[in-house]
């Protein structure tokens, strides 16, 4: 019989080991999944995890990994503050979309003016502002009406999805686009294009910002009073109140951070890899970022690695789909399995597993 015994202190070994264990567990379970589909499990795992980094076509796949990792990491970093404090922003996807809409609108408003030095920074600010405003809705409702932020932020994602569809065929539609839905391609407009900074690396401004966010968050959590208050609130809200933390101010600040980072991720994506405002722009980064945040244990460095790993599953999954005819839904199953495995093995951090003989009558 399995018995769980609470540890005196959270185990440091397992804090670092559980994400690795979760990844291994997912590989095993994923391999089994592929085997039941009739595919060679080892080949599949290799195609997904190994080839994109070091295989034959890695020169093509590696930049793709960075491009996919940037929004995941940006959003996950933003979410990690709130999650650490028990503030659940589940609507990052919506904030990401609205940030993209706002940023793209600024660019298109200036078209065809060539003044990148002015337009690009304005776009970034608009992206941040858009995400912040969208995030303020659940935040203020929570502070003033005690509504559940999970529900409100999630519902607003659907609103944002409808909005972007509407804009792509209405206000933001490309007038030179022969009537097709979609805005102008921002990649082709030099003032707004978010292209790679170094050829062949896939590193665009979003990647740079993501790295900066990781470093800044590390410093804030370790050395700044705000980071300490976030951690303390997550530990014990009563102790946080005793330490003088203003709960409402904390909620709003966490939503501002996560909304702003999600919004700017949306801006970098629409001005970069995606290119234009389209109904199909939303790519669920806002939701996958939640998995990335927990896989990285809400720690900035962990999120960095988790984001890269998640991006790898996207890119590798696409490669496997092409090379081995594996259905694309498998990627999402993988990502879900990662989260499941992590949540299950997480019990080892706080509890010791003991096998005891069943008790007699």
């Amino acid at each position: 019989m399995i018995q769980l015994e609470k540890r005196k202190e959270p185990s440091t070994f397992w804090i670092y080991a559980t994400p690795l264990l979760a990844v291994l567990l997912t590989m095993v379970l994923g391999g089994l999944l592929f085997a039941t589909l009739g595919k060679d499990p080892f080949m599949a795992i290799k195609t997904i995890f190994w080839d994109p980094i070091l295989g034959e076509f890695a020169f093509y796949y590696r930049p793709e990994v960075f491009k996919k990792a940037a929004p995941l990491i940006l959003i996950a970093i933003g979410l990690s503050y709130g999650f650490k404090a028990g503030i659940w922003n589940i609507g990052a996807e919506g904030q990401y979309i609205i940030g993209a809409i706002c940023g793209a609108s600024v660019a298109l408003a200036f078209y065809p003016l060539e003044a990148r030095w002015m337009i690009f920074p304005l776009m970034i600010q608009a992206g941040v502002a858009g995400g912040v405003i969208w995030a303020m809705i659940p935040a203020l409702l929570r502070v003033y009406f005690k509504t559940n932020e999970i529900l409100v932020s999630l519902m607003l994602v659907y609103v944002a999805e409808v909005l972007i569809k509407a804009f792509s065929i209405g206000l933001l539609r490309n007038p030179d686009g022969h009537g097709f839905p979609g805005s102008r391609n921002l990649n082709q407009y030099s003032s707004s294009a978010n292209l790679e900074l170094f050829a062949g690396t896939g590193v665009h401004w979003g990647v740079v910002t993501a790295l900066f966010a990781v470093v800044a968050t590390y410093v804030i959590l370790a050395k700044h009073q705000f980071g300490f208050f976030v951690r303390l609130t997550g530990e014990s809200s009563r102790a946080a109140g005793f330490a003088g933390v203003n709960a409402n101010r904390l909620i709003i600040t966490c939503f501002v951070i996560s909304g702003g980072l999600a919004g700017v991720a949306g801006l970098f994506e629409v001005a970069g890899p995606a290119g234009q405002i389209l109904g199909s722009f939303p790519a669920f980064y806002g939701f996958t970022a939640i998995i990335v945040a927990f896989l990285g244990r809400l720690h900035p460095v962990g999120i960095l690695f988790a984001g890269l790993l998640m991006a790898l599953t996207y890119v590798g999954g696409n490669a496997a789909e092409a090379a081995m005819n594996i259905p694309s839904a498998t990627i999402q199953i993988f990502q879900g399995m990662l989260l499941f495995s992590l949540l299950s093995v997480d019990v080892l951090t706080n509890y010791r597993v003991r096998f005891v003989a069943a008790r007699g009558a």
Partner: protein
Amino acid sequence: MTDTLLKIQGLTKAYPGVVANDDVSFDIGRGEVHALLGENGAGKSTLVKMIYGLVKPDQGQMTMHDVKYAPTDPRQARATGVAMVFQHFSLFDALTVAENIALGMENPPSQRDLSDQICKVSQNYGLPLDPRRTVGVLSAGERQRVEIIRCLLQNPKLLIMDEPTSVLTPQEVQILFQTLRKLKSEGTSILYISHKLDEIREICDTATILRHGKKVETCTPSDKSARELAEMMVGASFEAPKRSDRQLGDVILEVSNLSLNAADAYGTSLRGVTFTVRAGEVLGIGGVAGNGQDELLSALSGEAMTPASMVRLDGRDIGHLGPNDRRLLGLLAAPEERLGHAAAPNMSLIENAMMTAADRKGMVTSGFLAWGKARQFAEDVIQKFDVRTPSAQNAARSLSGGNLQKFVIGREVLQEPSVLIVNQPTWGVDAAAAASIRQALLDLATGGAAIIVISQDLDELIEISDNFAALNEGRLSEIRPMLGLTVDQIGLMMGGAHDIEVEHG
């Protein structure tokens, strides 16, 4: 009083890192009031949980009336005639007395029959109770009655009571004792767990003393003095805190007509609380739990804000200020709940030090934290207050209750407050740590600080307070000097028996 009801032999139970009970043996006779004596952490709770079937012993055996007794769960224990009144009650505030009692029964009779039974039994044993009242409005003493009546309805042979008088005023204690004497005369045995020596000497026939899990002795308490019993409990004699003659200075803290609505339906609202504390004075505020202690501490610490002039420090209105602003002005507090309020359980002692000392000890500059200073401060506290822990990096939850409390109090004392408010400073703490905490509070007062000690432990308040007031249902009694105050007078200030009738037919 001649037959043996329960025979306990060699009971042993170990948990990781600690042997809770080590080869404990004693007998309880029929109609005997048997005390189980020991300080916090001695193993009383574990032993009693084994008797009640909540925990299975590793070794040893029990026999009831010479028949082997090994209950696997409380239901079996109850079926064999063992009933228990816990220290912390399991009652639902929103339901009536009768509904609560029915919930704990296997086959409850109809509400009407049950109400009749409750009335009859409660009158019979001198603990009258109206079955239709909602539990939420009952005082702690009345709630205990509900628990006791619940047990008595099962006609137990052995009634176990865990720290029964911790929630009673002195008058209510006497009422309880009369009930116990009646039960005894009918042949019911009582296992009475307590650390209150005077009560045990008054009501108990036999006492078994536990220390660090082992049985020290089984004796007749009335043959021994309270001091002898204390020394057997603790295993050493230690100094009672010394009070030096202190000169009282100016009034530092002034609380005027403090009124605060309860945070939720079953909290306690404070009404018109008024008092002052001078430099060098220790004001003891007594009262049974649930009469507004937490609320009073929140109002003073700044966690709950009030109209500005209700709380004044050095003549300055501070009622509208939050905890950190009050800390900067020299007002510090230590709440009752160690893990989850005074300290964050999973955070290290260094982080817990930063939690309250950040502003006062200059650990924050433009928002950035000086962890080196926090570590230094934490290590200072650990060293000066003899906190047993491998290092300051250890999580708060890994410390024993007594050590964590020493840290929590020490953390505030070393910040040199001008006013310190503590709530239940030695609850659940071993005797040696409790003595050092009380001495630290007295030393702080000698240094000129104003101290407010909110406590349920009257012995503690009698030992260290200069003045005394009692909190009863959110209202503060008048303040009287401690010197010369009798226990009876204190009891009346705490609300006496709360106007409950006593019927002993």
